[in-house]
């Protein structure tokens, strides 16, 4: 069979089994659905812990507030970027979208370790820092799972890059949620543990999520 005939045979076969399909919703609406899940978790944490501790920390040390805003913005922009990049034909420069907010998040968190401590607020010891790691990882994994499940309906042609963005969005969302119940001042051990948690989540996503998405 010649190549032209092979193509024609395949096109005829694909045409014969054509069924109407439901078009994929725009990326921003799909990202919004995922962010709604994060918002529900945030509301649940606010109900449980209240906003008092968080607001006290922010008023005493505005850099913590800036870092938290950076984390929230990183979660939003990384989620949007991953949903956009999962649609074929969208420019790869979307991957840069979460970078500025991630820099604000990381930069402000790092600066927090250099200033004077908030009076009356404990500094985290290693045991407490472990709890942060567990919190971020245990919130990130289901959030990543949901996003990968949503992304598999699209067609991520760059699975590893998309999975890295999924990891970044989930880790940033979890760090934002942690902010609600994080009753500690910034310290180097805390910052290191946050960085380890984020790196772990992004790395796991790149490894596992990339594989799952490449089969989508």
């Amino acid at each position: 069979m010649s190549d032209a005939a092979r193509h024609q045979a395949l096109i005829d076969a694909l045409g014969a089994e054509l069924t109407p399909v439901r078009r994929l919703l725009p990326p921003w609406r799909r990202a919004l659905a995922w962010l709604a899940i994060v918002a529900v978790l945030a509301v649940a944490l606010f109900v449980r812990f209240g906003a008092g501790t968080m607001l006290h920390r922010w008023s005493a040390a505005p850099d913590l507030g800036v870092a938290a805003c950076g984390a929230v913005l990183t979660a939003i922009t990384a989620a949007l970027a991953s949903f956009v990049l999962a649609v074929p034909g969208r420019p790869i420069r979307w991957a840069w979208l979460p970078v500025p907010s991630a820099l604000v998040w990381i930069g402000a968190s790092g600066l927090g370790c250099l200033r004077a401590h908030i009076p009356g607020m404990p500094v985290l010891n290693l045991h407490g820092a472990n709890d942060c790691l567990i919190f971020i990882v245990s919130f990130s994994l289901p959030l990543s799972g949901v996003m990968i499940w949503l992304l598999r309906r699209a067609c991520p042609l760059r699975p590893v890059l998309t999975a890295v963005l999924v990891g970044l969005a989930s880790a940033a969302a979890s760090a934002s949620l942690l902010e609600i119940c994080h009753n500690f001042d910034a310290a180097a051990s805390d910052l290191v543990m946050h960085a380890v948690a984020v790196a772990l989540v992004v790395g796991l996503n790149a490894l596992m999520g990339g594989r799952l998405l490449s089969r989508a």
Partner: protein
Amino acid sequence: MAQALTFEGPWVLLRQPPPRGPDSDKAVPTDIPSASEQADRQRAAWMAAAQAGDQRAYTRVLNDSVALIRAVARRQGVAVDALDDVVQETLLTVHRVRHTFDPSRSYDAWLSAIAARRAIDLLRSHGRREHREVHDEFAMDTHADREDASTGTLRQQEAERLRKAIETLPPGQREAVEQLGLKERTLAEAAERTGRNTGALKVNLHRALKTLRDRLHGES
């Protein structure tokens, strides 16, 4: 006409006259889309109709896509004799992910991204295969294949791997491989035996071969 003149008023006299010269016939207003843009829009409209189930529009857009897929694959560095493999893989992917196309955007950009990815996949799989294969004429001359016990065992192991890989295929794909590949039945015979139409059998066979290729190359 009088109305038009009244509306335009004296300002019409101040406008620049249209440029005249050797190229004046070619001058095209910027708001009119170029031929390639028009073709792109036409393909986008066909694909939008295909998403709603229009078979005629679908075969048209797929037929129209073949040349573009070949051009993209060529740009990616795919050899001429492998271009048609990229076309086949891309058409199958287009079919699977047709719901991701947004008719308000360029069809050509959407298709090119998929074709480029499939071209890269093909180049990578060829790269892996060449890496595994030995191209050493001296070795070929001095160590010709001998039918010893290990060759038989190796063949048995390969057959076993293939058999296991076929067993793990989804039922429709397994059926297509068994009927068309192993039992060497014609499409019509296979369709009669399985109760499926020939189109579905062909698509299932294409998918099964792709899955088997991926699995067997991925394992080794």
